[in-house]
């Protein structure tokens, strides 16, 4: 059996990649995708722990996370669509009306 630390390290790397991409990427869609990556890293962690602990509840949490992520995606994409329509750009640096 694969030891749990493999899964944990993998999900930590995925989460870290998500954080890095969130900070350094410039396209709004890409930033949004990095958030999804982070959420999926969390899902992997939940499932791995659930398996290691021999409890099912961790897998049920994943269901909740998936549903919430889908709802977030629907709202997020709608907001991004509004931006694209009103500003004609998806570059985060050009969406900057609200600055000091």
């Amino acid at each position, binding site marked *: 059996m*694969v*030891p749990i630390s*493999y899964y944990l390290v993998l999900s930590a790397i995925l989460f870290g990649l998500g954080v890095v991409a969130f900070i350094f990427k410039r396209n709004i869609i890409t930033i949004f995708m990095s958030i999804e990556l982070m959420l999926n890293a969390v899902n992997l962690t939940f499932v791995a722990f659930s398996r290691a602990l021999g409890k099912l509840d961790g897998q*049920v949490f994943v*269901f909740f996370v*998936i*549903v919430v992520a*889908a*709802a977030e*995606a*629907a709202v997020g*994409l*709608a907001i991004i*669509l509004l931006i694209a329509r009103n500003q004609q750009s998806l570059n985060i640096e050009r969406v900057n009306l609200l600055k000091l």
Partner: protein
Amino acid sequence: MSGDYLQNYAPLLIHLLVAMGLAGIILLLSTIVGYHRPTRAKLQPYECGVRPTGDAREPFSVKFYLVAMVFILFDVEAIFLYPWAYIYRDLHWFGFVEMLLYILILLAGYIYLWKKGALDWNR
């Protein structure tokens, strides 16, 4: 233990390398040795014998997006039926009523969408 564990995968790795190498060699040989007489018809993308029309990368209507999003939402919400079905026998009537309420809430969302015209393609 983990060392042994990785060793189990060694044949897979070798297989992967051999397959990639073989494919590379074949492609390389055919480019070096073969004749090349490109014609217009040969360079066209293959699309089941039908002549391709237009560009595949043109923007498409927002309507697709809306329908896709609605589909995803309802599809994902059905996820809760699986754990529910798994313990359905233990839940008895309580589980039945709970799921009925859940479906009714989804139905409310559906009615809302319908009345708002989100399902009307021609709007």
